[in-house]
């Protein structure tokens, strides 16, 4: 399901070119609008779809069900710190989701990786990945839980 661009909505701002991890979103040399130069290399990460300020990029559905009216569209609102999804099924059912993408204002919680000491020789020779003991807490107690994070498990499904 590679991406495609609605040419009438795209204003050629270049955010998708900037963000595409496969470097396959480019500016069409003739029309000055974004396009996916190699759909077979697109792995549907949705980065460009979310980054597009004009909502001009969409995912092409599989050929067997695309013509039947489904739709999966997303809107990433940086200023509100949320991402919203609207999913329309072929039978008309619609689902809407709204989730946080950051809990602190942008640019406040930047990890200062340069100040973190590098791994020792012992750590390099170990089977564990960098920081693995710390983050899965093999060294200092049990696994992280909802209680640790101050959250509670609620019954039922909450959207």
């Amino acid at each position, binding site marked *: 399901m590679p991406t495609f661009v609605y040419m009438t909505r795209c204003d050629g*701002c270049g955010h998708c070119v900037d963000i595409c991890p496969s470097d396959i979103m480019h500016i069409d040399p003739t029309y000055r609008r974004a396009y996916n130069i190699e759909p077979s290399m697109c792995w549907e990460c949705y980065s460009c779809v979310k980054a597009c300020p004009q909502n001009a990029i969409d995912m092409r559905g599989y050929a067997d069900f695309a013509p039947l009216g489904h739709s999966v569209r997303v809107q990433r609102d940086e200023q*509100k710190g949320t991402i919203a999804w609207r999913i*329309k099924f072929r039978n008309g059912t619609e689902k809407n989701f709204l989730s946080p993408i950051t809990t602190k204002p942008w640019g406040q919680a930047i990890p200062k990786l340069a100040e973190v000491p590098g791994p020792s020789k012992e750590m390099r020779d170990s089977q564990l990945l960098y920081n693995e003991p710390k983050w899965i807490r093999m060294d200092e107690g049990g696994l992280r839980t909802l209680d640790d994070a101050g959250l509670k498990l609620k019954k039922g499904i909450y959207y």
Partner: protein
Amino acid sequence: MFSINPFAGISGSISPALMQWYVVLMVVLVAAGTLFDIVHKGSAKYFFENWRKSKSKSVQQVEGGELMSIAMQTALVDVLASGEFCNARRRIAHLLTMYGFVIHVVATAVLVFAYPTTPTPAVWPNLWWIGALMLLLGGYWFWFFIRVDVAAEGNSPFRVMHADLFVLSLLASVTLGLIWAWLQASGSAASGVFFGLYILATTVLFAGVPWSKFAHMFFKPAAAFEKRVSKANGTAENLPTLSRDDPEQQARHSMELLRDAPMDMGLGIKREAPRHY
């Protein structure tokens, strides 16, 4: 120089009636070119097809008064303030070019039709120059620094394509027009050559409407209007309509972590211009 009507200056060698006919011909070419563009690309057909589709799927009806208010918003925000641009530099460049063009064209029409030979009030030649300089400032800024294949693709600003027909003929027309006016005011013999080049570039600009993006000044407002209507009628082109502004949404379980967060979290990836090609 800035207070002299350059068109009155050449009225001795080119009759004012001919100049007036030329302006009328250019207006006719723009109208005919735009109509041809609409028929050839089927843009009006698709616009109304989309309109009907959006209306048939609408969650709430948008009629009369509300449509008028949306039309007003489109005119004030999207057209007069270039509100659809999300990049501030491009928006400023567009505003300079757009208002410069309007001022320059109106001043040209007044100079050619109202004061072809008679003494001209200084305000109209002044506006002719101010409009042209605004247009050149916005246009060259756009051309050399902020247009997408230079800013996002890292291409040379001197790479010229068919898509540049509008911008280049506009810049050429106004640049050559100013050079001609300047040479004429300083009494140079080369002013005739530049007048010829000015007319050539202007003819390409207005006669090239079917092949250039000149017609965007007509179909862009229609597209902006359609976008606003689709938001108001709930279809929103299938885009999500949920927002954190809605208290009901704030109470959702999924929004728990944002309960005490400020409503404006600032800009994330859009803090920087997309120039990391």
